[in-house]
């Protein structure tokens, strides 16, 4: 009954700065709330592929991801008259699509925090325990709120090849959050436990509903 305790007690709040150290990360537990200040880098499906290909070929990435936070996000961006980028909306995308490559990604890049929505699976959880990283969710859909915390676009890579949503954006953020930790370095996966609980409830609710004489 771990989860009942997590749900009902006041969540602990941490304000962290990048680069993130193992000490920063290892103190975090599922259910904690984090606000990040510093550098976060976006990557969706295609940027993940490209980053891993680049490393596979023995080349350097355009930015060293060690100690940074990775954000599963495809922003809405527009160019200002002076040529700089404005991030209009930047909520998270579904993280599970990256599950097949994320463990390798964590191992090879040294990212310390992955931010997305919807949770991730066993391979990522295992890699986070081994290489000391956490997964946290930003409120899905809250694109305007996310954009507000992005103070500057520091760089964007592979824009030509991948297009705006899939490119690798480097954001300077201030108090980016609330991020809720759902996978920590102890191997705990909050969503996995929660969803098992929800499925059990679903069975019970279906049985109760079966007794109702639809249509009345």
């Amino acid at each position, binding site marked *: 009954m771990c*989860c009942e305790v*997590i*749900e*009902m*007690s*006041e*969540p602990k709040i941490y304000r962290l700065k990048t680069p993130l150290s193992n000490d920063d990360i290892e103190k975090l537990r599922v*259910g904690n*709330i984090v606000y990040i200040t510093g550098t976060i880098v976006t990557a969706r499906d295609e940027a993940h592929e490209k980053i891993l290909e680049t490393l596979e070929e023995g080349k350097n990435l355009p930015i060293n991801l060690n100690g940074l936070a990775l954000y599963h*996000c*495809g*922003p*809405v961006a*527009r160019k200002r008259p002076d040529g700089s980028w404005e991030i*209009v*909306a*930047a*909520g998270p*995308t*579904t993280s*599970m699509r990256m599950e097949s490559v994320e463990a390798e990604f964590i191992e090879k890049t040294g990212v310390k925090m992955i931010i997305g*929505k*919807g*949770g991730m699976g066993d391979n990522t959880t295992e890699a986070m325990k081994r290489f000391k990283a956490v997964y946290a*969710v930003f*409120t*899905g*859909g*809250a*694109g*305007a*709120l*996310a*954009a*507000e915390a992005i103070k500057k676009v520091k760089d964007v890579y592979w824009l030509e090849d991948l*297009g*705006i*949503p899939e490119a690798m954006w480097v954001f300077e953020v201030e108090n980016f959050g*609330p991020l*809720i930790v759902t996978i920590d370095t102890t191997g705990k996966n909050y*969503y996995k436990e*929660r*969803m098992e*609980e*929800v*499925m059990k*409830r*679903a069975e019970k*609710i*279906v049985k*109760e*509903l*079966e007794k*109702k004489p*639809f*249509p*009345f």
Partner: protein
Amino acid sequence: MSLKENLTEAFKELIVKVATGIPEDVYEYINKAYETEENPLAKAQFEAILKDMKLACMRTKPICQDTGTPYLFLEVGDDFPLKSGIIDTFKEALRYVTKKMGILRPNAVDPIYAKNSGDNTGRFIPWVHTDLVPGNELKVNLMFKGGGSEAPSTLVMSPPLKGWKTLKETIIKTVANAGPLPCPPLIVGIAVAAGADMALTLAKRAVLRPIGKRHPDPKVARMEEELLNALNKLEVGPHGFGGRFSVLDVKFEYAYRHPATFAIGVITSCWATRRGSMTVKPDGSYLITSKHLVHEGDNCVVR
């Protein structure tokens, strides 16, 4: 100005309003959920959602970066002077808001040639449903439907004898299985019909009906309430963090079925359900009939 010019301006205003201003009913229910929710993680989600809605309104920014696929549900009066011109005009407005204003993310992707059109229009996009009605007015219902929240949508072709049993199981399991992915709390549209396409279309159309407004048939209304209560016992909660609000409402619709079929369509729509409506007169004068959170002075007000 000509009717077409007027209509283009009307569509631009409606598109911006729908993408940046959360509808009144959604805003009120999320506020209520925030005030009554006791689970602190769920409450934190509602707080973030409300901040997002207000920022989108203050800055005229999209509520969600997934600005969705455009759906038009039209009621075209017999004597409204434009017909196919309605769609051309809407496309022009859509291109303008996407490319010139940068408010909509380009979301129309050609699956065969793997190319994004860049302006949110494309083959069969916007998706249009038209009802022909008496009179000389045009009524427009616009919905921007997010991709992530469309993913769990379900169709089941049930044997008629098991129809209602299947329906109960389908709606509960659809919301439970989806968990945090479609960005709950959801509005769930559910429909029974003869054909597969009919069930899904009616389920989507049902999402247009405001939260809290029940189906006019009392039997259907009671089923909506039973399903709503049952779904909220799942405790999925906002983004899977538990609590009392997994769905904001259930909307039930139906068509007559075939003796041999019982098609069940379920559509899930995220907390950021974006929809709006307007009425256009034959001279192009128009009125946006839906209320949204909009910018006024230094504040956001529902208007």
